[in-house]
């Protein structure tokens, strides 16, 4: 465990040192996965679904704020839908606009959260989202979670019924407009998954914020279980098409991700919990204090004894073993003639200084200096 904690500290140090590059790299990967998923699933416009476009968009979005990635993904989806059918693009535009009006106007900084559920559903790991959002966020994160799920199922609806929406005559336009709206709004699987994710996030958040031991672990497990049960029960009732092994695997992965997040962001030692009770004029206080677990990364210290002679000393054997490439604690080499010649004047200087000090003490010169004026 202590080795893992040391690794965590090292990771934190590396992140602190190179945070700007790490964040940009993550943003690039996120963009690549997002645009790749969009283009592979609903790539109706050939020019926009090329690898060049995917990589280019991801690269451009890397250097811009996250809100631009959200905007680019929205535009890309709309462009593909427009290439398929104008009514589909129009209805999708209205849905995205509604998301903006009712939520993202107030928190534009959190708009990127909507991408995560869409990506997780695209990668067939939907139950990771309730755990991650519940552990890392607040109950209001149910809104971006739900919006992400709706966006994903909207693209799924278009993907599965693409052939039906391809029509050019005016009568066909109206029909496809109504048919797409109906298909999208009455998609029972979509509403079921929205409910499962929302309930999961709320349960995880509720348990995580309780003052109980191992709250994060219990929260991850219970949230994943609630989401799984709701989704599978709803699937049985509605006779939907959710794959059981995939759903169970996703829930297990959700719990694993929860454990990783707990290790990274909430390592505490419950065995050393302190329960304290005290009072003031107005209240009685029942305080539970749980100490954090933390280790400091052993650092190599280099001590310079003299200007001419440097001696390196490692502070621990473990530390030395970790850096085999570097020079280890060097043994003091036998004093060579050159070193002797440099040492001799130093010795003479020391003797002179000591002599001067003892003389000035005997003559009382020190006292004269220390006397106040």
């Amino acid at each position: 465990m202590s080795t893992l904690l040391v690794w965590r500290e090292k990771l934190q140090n590396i992140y602190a040192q190179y945070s700007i590059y790490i964040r940009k790299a993550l943003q690039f990967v996120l963009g690549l996965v997002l645009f790749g998923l969009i283009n592979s699933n609903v790539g109706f416009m050939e020019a926009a679904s090329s690898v060049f476009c995917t990589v280019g968009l991801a690269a451009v979005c890397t250097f811009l704020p996250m809100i631009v990635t959200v905007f680019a993904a929205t535009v890309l989806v709309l462009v593909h839908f427009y290439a398929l059918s104008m009514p589909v693009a129009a209805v999708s535009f209205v849905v995205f606009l509604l998301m903006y009006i009712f939520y993202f106007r107030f928190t534009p900084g959190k708009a990127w959260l909507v991408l995560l559920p869409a990506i997780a559903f695209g990668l067939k790991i939907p139950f990771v989202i309730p755990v991650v959002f519940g552990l890392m966020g607040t109950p209001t994160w149910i809104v971006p979670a739900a919006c992400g799920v709706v966006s994903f199922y909207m693209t799924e609806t278009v993907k599965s019924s693409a052939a039906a929406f391809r029509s050019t005559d005016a009568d066909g336009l109206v029909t496809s407009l109504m048919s797409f709206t109906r298909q999208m709004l009455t998609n029972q699987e979509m509403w079921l998954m929205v409910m499962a994710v929302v309930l999961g996030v709320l349960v995880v958040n509720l348990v995580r914020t309780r003052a109980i031991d191992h709250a994060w672990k219990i929260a991850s497990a219970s949230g994943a279980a609630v989401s799984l049960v709701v989704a599978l029960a709803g699937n049985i009732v509605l006779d939907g098409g959710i794959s059981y092994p995939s759903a169970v695997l996703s829930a297990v992965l959700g719990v694993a991700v929860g454990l990783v997040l707990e290790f990274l962001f909430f390592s505490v030692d419950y065995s050393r919990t302190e329960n304290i009770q005290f009072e003031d004029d107005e209240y009685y206080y029942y305080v539970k204090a749980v100490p954090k677990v933390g280790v400091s990364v052993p650092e190599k210290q280099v001590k310079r004894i003299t200007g001419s002679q440097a001696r390196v000393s490692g502070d621990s054997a473990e530390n030395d073993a970790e850096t085999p490439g570097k020079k280890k604690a060097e043994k003091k080499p036998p004093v060579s003639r050159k070193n002797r010649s440099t040492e001799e004047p130093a010795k003479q200087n020391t003797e002179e200084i000591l002599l001067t000090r003892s003389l000035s003490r005997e003559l009382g010169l020190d006292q004269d200096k220390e006397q106040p004026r």
Partner: protein
Amino acid sequence: MVDKRKIRLMTRTAIYEKEYGEEDVRICSYYRKDYSSLNTWITLIWITVGYALAAGLVFLCGGETLLEGITILRLLILLAVAVGGYLVLLILYGVGAGSFYKEKHKRAKQRVKRYMRDLARLEKMNQKKEINRS
């Protein structure tokens, strides 16, 4: 020699300017009540547009079923439900937006106050340095 305190202050002010500076100055150019009322009104207009769009989508989805064999009484009930829903939404968002924007203004003002204090400190430091030089 490098003055650590001054560097800390300058870094803090620079971070503030980068993160919030422009928006906070814009927010603080209004009185709190004016800012919250203006933005609440804008929110209500957006909510009206959003509600109309959502109602349009619902109508597209189930319009045929709703209008099938419709009577005046049923139409009136439908209208009452639609208007009721709209009013509820309007009240909810109106109250929510009011408190949200008041809080936003309060926080912006606090940040601007702190920024001004930091600037004043910096100015004092510079003046002190000038005096020492002369």
